[in-house]
């Protein structure tokens, strides 16, 4: 089974891009599975189902979405193998711009929105930096110049990635993406595999439910800002 991980900021068009690529892949939809890692709610399950794609959605709730991802991905792959899929796609939203649910050796795709502003690629961090393929959506509504500058800024943070413009509505560009996806490595499990980047560190009193403000309530891993006055 081929495993592909998709990530990207919320509402960047991940689901549309994945659906368009599924159309462009020459694989029966019944042999493709999707695992969607989300935080609180998700409205995309139906979009996959109406296409006949099997989908499982998991909600991280109060947990860090990255930690949630890494503690469930192995079982997700097992589910995919057992279901007899040819391709398993995982979709997860990067919330702190640091999330990078990428695994070494596993094809990773980051989806970002051209409307988010030209400097966005320089702010996203590991999720963009460590991706193999960067898909840019909504390029059809901005000027050619902004598309070019956007791609240039992606290139600045990730010199090696392939940049593909995909129109999530018409599917323009999805064919090229699908061809790239087809090169994803075959896996039969993920045990002992490694993440590409550490997940956000967070073992502090607030992780365990503390709500009060004040240094006496702060235990564990903390980071303090420096405020200087003249």
């Amino acid at each position, binding site marked *: 089974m081929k495993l592909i991980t998709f990530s990207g900021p919320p509402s960047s068009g991940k689901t549309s891009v994945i659906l368009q690529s599924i159309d462009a892949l020459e694989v029966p939809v019944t042999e493709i599975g999707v695992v969607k890692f989300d935080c609180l709610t998700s409205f995309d399950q139906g979009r996959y189902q109406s296409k006949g794609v099997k989908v499982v959605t998991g909600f991280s709730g109060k947990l860090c979405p990255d930690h949630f991802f890494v503690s469930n991905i192995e079982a997700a792959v097992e589910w995919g193998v057992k279901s007899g899929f040819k391709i398993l796609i995982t979709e997860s939203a990067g919330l702190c711009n640091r999330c990078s649910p990428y695994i070494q050796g596993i094809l990773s795709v980051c989806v970002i929105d051209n409307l988010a502003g030209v400097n966005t690629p320089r702010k996203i961090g590991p999720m963009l930096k460590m991706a193999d393929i960067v898909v840019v959506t909504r390029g059809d509504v901005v000027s050619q*110049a902004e598309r070019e500058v956007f791609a240039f800024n992606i290139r600045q943070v990730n010199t090696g990635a392939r940049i593909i413009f995909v129109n999530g509505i018409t599917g323009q560009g999805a064919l090229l993406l699908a061809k790239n996806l087809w090169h994803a490595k075959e896996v039969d499990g993920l045990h002992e595999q490694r993440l590409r980047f550490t997940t956000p560190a967070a073992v502090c009193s607030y992780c365990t439910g503390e709500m009060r403000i004040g240094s006496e309530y702060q235990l564990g891993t903390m980071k303090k800002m420096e405020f200087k006055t003249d």
Partner: protein
Amino acid sequence: MSRRNFLEIAVSQPLSQIRAEFPVCEDFFLNLRIENIDWSLTLLNALDKVDKEVINEFGLDREMIFREFVAFLDAFGHVSATAAEIKSLTVIGGHDKSGNAEIDSFCVAVGEIICIVGPTGAGKSRLLGDIECLADGDTPTGRRILIDGEMVSDQRRFDMEGKLVAQLSQNMNFVMDLTVEEFLRMHAGSRFIDDAEDSIKRCFECANQLTGEKFMMDTRVTQLSGGQSRALMIADTACMSSSPIVLIDEIENAGIDRRQAIRLLARKEKIVFVSTHDPLLALSGDRRIVIKNGGVVSVIETSESEKRCLDEIEKLDTTLFRLRSCLRNGGIIDMDMLKG
């Protein structure tokens, strides 16, 4: 310049010297939130003085930053040389929506203007899409696109990464809140254009020639009218973009000098495809492709007699323009105004 050279440069030269040659390398450090690097040192020495915590947050160490810096120089040290140069583009016909074969093939050379005509939904955008992705019998139309008469390998397709085709359509907007000058400077910067100031000025003048209503260098791009935006996009594509193929989807209502606009693009050694219903544009092209039911049914060369009609069409167009201006200014339309 080879990668090896950049490795040597990064090892031996002080950062200030590298910056002098490649000003873009300042961005590399900003992207890693390293703001106060000591430019007088070589990279590795300078990194010793940088807060380890910041570097760690990016999941990097000193050696990784060094490797990435070399890769960065490698990617941006010779960008201008990578512009795709092509001489011609050939479309090998596929089939229409009912599976019937379309026209065998047609070839377009640099400097040509090709119009695409056909009813809404006939497949004009599909043809533009096939060209954009350099279809290889793998799109619903089964078309294949050759460059300079040759098949394009998957590798080359990927390498071109959208550098081949620039697109313009009615739906495109400026979303950045910048002045015209800042906007053009930013675009020039990303292209490493040598004579940036010159290009910016030329581009600005071009855009103003194309539009009826003039704008200034310090006008914000988001405040330009539809026509002004379109004019700036066209001038920018002609003067700054290196893509040899330009696809234009419906620009007729933009309130700009459309004939001059597409001529400007063709003059810049580009292949220009214009999807249009506008007689003025359609007859300004060298040829036009007729699409029906998803397939190309014919390629019509613009004849001399058609070209002679252009002057009359232009007069009609001017008349309509005059009527529009009159309405806009609160005027009253009368029969005399139709006579020109």
